[in-house]
C-alpha cells in the first residue's frame, strides 16, 4: 500500500521530463503543431514511457496545465502568507505572479496555448481564479461592515487583473508587468480600504513587500529546485489565516465519526485538530491526542500527516457522496432530485462544520495531493447535473457549454466555501433556495427553477 508513494517517486523524473519537454515544445510551436514524438525526442524517452503516464497528447497537456496551476496556487498562498497586512499580502501575490511569468516565459506561452486548446483547460484556470478572488475578497475583513460589499467585486477584480496580465503576456510585453502591479493593487484595495489607501498603493510602485522579499531570497539560496518540481507537498505551512478562522461550535465529534476503529478515530482526530489549529498548525501529537491513541498507532496506519489528511478527505467525501446520492435517488423527478441532493449536502456540512472546513477549505491549501482529489470530487458531482440535459429541447441544450456542469459545481462549491470561511457553516442550509435556483436555471429557465427552489419542505 505504501508502494504508491515509492512508485510515484520513481516515476517522478520520467514524468517530469515529459512535462518539461511538452511545455518547451508547445511554447515554441503551439498546441496543434506539437506531437508526442517531438515531446519524446526532446525528453529522450520512448513511447511506452509516455503511455505509462498519459493517455495521449491532450491528457498530457492537461496534466501539465494542472501541475502548473497547482504550483501557482501554492506559490501564491506562500506569498500571501509571508506578509501580515492584507494589502501587503495581495502585493506579495501579485509580485510572485509577475516574477514567475518573467522568469519562466515558456510557462506563460504554454498557458496561452493550452487555454486555446479547450474547455477543460479553462475550467482548471477558473478554479485558480476563484482562489485568487477569495484572497481579494478577504479585504472585507478590514471593513467595519464586512457585508457592505458584494462578492462579485472580488471576482471581477481578479478576472480583470488576469485579463490585463494575460494580454501583456500574449503580446510579448512581459516587461510592462511590474508597472502594472501598483495599478492593479490600487484598484483592488479601493473598494475595501477606500480611496486614500488606493492612492498610497499606487504611489508605491512595484515594491515587493519586505518579508516576502526575504522569503524569496531564502528560497533561492537553500532549495533551488523545490519550488519548481511541484513535489513540495509540505508547503502547506502556508495557508491564510483568513481561511483559518474557526467555525463556531466545532467542539464535540460528530457522532457518526466516533467509531471504535483506530483508523477512523485517527481521521476524526485529525479533523478535530485541524478545526483547532488549521492544517499547517496541526502536528501528529495533536492528532493522536484527539484520537486518544499512541503515536505508534498513528504510524501503523499512516506514514505522515499528509497521508492521514488524504484518508480523512476521502472518508468525508465518501460520506458526502453517499448522502447526496441517497437524496438524489429518493426524488421523483430530476429537478427535485437536484434539490434533494443539494439539500443533503448542505445538511451534512452544516451538521459537521469542521468536516465541512476540512473538505471544502483546507483541501485547497493542503498541497497538490489533495488538490487533485478535490478536483476529482468536483468531477464526481458533475453527472448529477449532466443528467439534467436529458429530454431538454434543443434551444436549451444550445445554451449549455461542455463545461457548464463543472462550472455549476465550481460555483456552488465556491459559494459554500465562502460561508465556511466566514465561520457560518451552521447557516449553510439557508443557501438551499439560491443554490437550487442557480443550478437549475440553465436547464429549466429561471422561472421554473425559481419555482422548484422556493417550494416549501
Amino acid at each position: 500500500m505504501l508502494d504508491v508513494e515509492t512508485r510515484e517517486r520513481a516515476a517522478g523524473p520520467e514524468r517530469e521530463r515529459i512535462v518539461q519537454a511538452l511545455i518547451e515544445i508547445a511554447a515554441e510551436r503551439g498546441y496543434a503543431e506539437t506531437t508526442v514524438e517531438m515531446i519524446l525526442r526532446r525528453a529522450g524517452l520512448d513511447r511506452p514511457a509516455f503511455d505509462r503516464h498519459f493517455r495521449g497528447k491532450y491528457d498530457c497537456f492537461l496534466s501539465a496545465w494542472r501541475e502548473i496551476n497547482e504550483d501557482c496556487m501554492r506559490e501564491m498562498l506562500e506569498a500571501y502568507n509571508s506578509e501580515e497586512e492584507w494589502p501587503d499580502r495581495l502585493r506579495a501575490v501579485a509580485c510572485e505572479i509577475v516574477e514567475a511569468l518573467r522568469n519562466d516565459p515558456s510557462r506563460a506561452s504554454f498557458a496561452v496555448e493550452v487555454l486555446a486548446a479547450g474547455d477543460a483547460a479553462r475550467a482548471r484556470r477558473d478554479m485558480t481564479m476563484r482562489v485568487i478572488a477569495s484572497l481579494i475578497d478577504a479585504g472585507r475583513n478590514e471593513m467595519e461592515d464586512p457585508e457592505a460589499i458584494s462578492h462579485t467585486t472580488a471576482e471581477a477584480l481578479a478576472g480583470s487583473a488576469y485579463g490585463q496580465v494575460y494580454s501583456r503576456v500574449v503580446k510579448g510585453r512581459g516587461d510592462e508587468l511590474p508597472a502594472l502591479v501598483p495599478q492593479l493593487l490600487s484598484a483592488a484595495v479601493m473598494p475595501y480600504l477606500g480611496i486614500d489607501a488606493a492612492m498610497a498603493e499606487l504611489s508605491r510602485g512595484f515594491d515587493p513587500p519586505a518579508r516576502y522579499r526575504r522569503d524569496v531570497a531564502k528560497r533561492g539560496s537553500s532549495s533551488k529546485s523545490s519550488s519548481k518540481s511541484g513535489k513540495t507537498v509540505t508547503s502547506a505551512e502556508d495557508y491564510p489565516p483568513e481561511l483559518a478562522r474557526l467555525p463556531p461550535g466545532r467542539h464535540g465529534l460528530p457522532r457518526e465519526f466516533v467509531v471504535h476503529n483506530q483508523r477512523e478515530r485517527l481521521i476524526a482526530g485529525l479533523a478535530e485538530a485541524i478545526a483547532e489549529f488549521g492544517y499547517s498548525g496541526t502536528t501528529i501529537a495533536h492528532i493522536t491526542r484527539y484520537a486518544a491513541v499512541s503515536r505508534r498507532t498513528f504510524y501503523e496506519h499512516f506514514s505522515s500527516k499528509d497521508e492521514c489528511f488524504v484518508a480523512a478527505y476521502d472518508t468525508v467525501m465518501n460520506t458526502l457522496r453517499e448522502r447526496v446520492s441517497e437524496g438524489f435517488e429518493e426524488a421523483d423527478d430530476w429537478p427535485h432530485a437536484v434539490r434533494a441532493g443539494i439539500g443533503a449536502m448542505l445538511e451534512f456540512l452544516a451538521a459537521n462544520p469542521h468536516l465541512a472546513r476540512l473538505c471544502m477549505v483546507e483541501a485547497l491549501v493542503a498541497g497538490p495531493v489533495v488538490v487533485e482529489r478535490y478536483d476529482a470530487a468536483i468531477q464526481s458531482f458533475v453527472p448529477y447535473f449532466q443528467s439534467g440535459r436529458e429530454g431538454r429541447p434543443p434551444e436549451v441544450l444550445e445554451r449549455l457549454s461542455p463545461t457548464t456542469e463543472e462550472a455549476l459545481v465550481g460555483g456552488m462549491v465556491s459559494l459554500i466555501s465562502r460561508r465556511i470561511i466566514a465561520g457560518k457553516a451552521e447557516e449553510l442550509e439557508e443557501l438551499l433556495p439560491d443554490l437550487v435556483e442557480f443550478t437549475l436555471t440553465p436547464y429549466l429557465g429561471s422561472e421554473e427553477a425559481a419555482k422548484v427552489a422556493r417550494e416549501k419542505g
Partner: protein
Amino acid sequence: MPPGRHALPREFIAQHQRARIIAALAEETVDKGYRAVTVADIVRRAGIARNTFYENFSSKEDCFLAASEFAVKEALRRVVDAASKVDAWPDRVNAGLAAFLHYVASEPALARTCIVEALSAGPAAVDRYERSIQAFVPLFRMGRKVSAKGEELPETLEETIVGGIFWILYQRIIMGQAERIEDLLGELAEFALTPYLGAEAAKRIAGQAPAGAAAG
C-alpha cells in the same frame, strides 16, 4: 434568401450575409468550442456556398475577429444610446450598463464567442479583446470628473472596470446563467461606480434607473 431577392440592394445582401456567417460561427463555437470549428461547419450552418464565405472573410480567424468587432460596435451603439438619454454620469453608467446586459442576454451565442474565446485564444483575439475594452473605457473615464482624485486615479482603472465586467459575464455565461445576466446590474454598477464615488454612494445609486429611462 427570400424570393425576389434581386430587388434588394446589393449592400443589404452583403451585410445580411456577413451577419449570417457571423451568427453561424457563434452557434458552432457554442456547440464545439472555437478551435474545433471549421469553415465547412460555418458554411453548412449558415446555408451558404463556400465561395460566399471566402468572399467575405479570408479565414475562420478573420470571421471570428469580425464577429467580435460587430458585437462590440452593436453593444457600444446601444450603450451610448441609452446613456445619452440621461444627464448625470452615475445615471449614465446605470443606463448604459443596463443596455449592455440586455444586449448580452439577448445574444448569448455571440456573447459567449466574443467574451469566452477572447480571453483564451491567441494574439489576434487578445488584440481584439483589448480594443473591445478600450471601446468602453471613455464612458467610465468621464467619472474622473466627479471624483475628488480625478486624473490621479490609477491609469488602468477603467480597463480594470471593463475587464472585470467582461469576466463576470464570462463566468455567468459558462455557468449557463445567460438569461439571468440582467440581474447583475446592481452589483456591476456598484463595482464600476465605487472607485469614483466611494463605496457608500456607489451602493446607494447602483442599479437605480432615473425616472423616464427604462432599461431596454
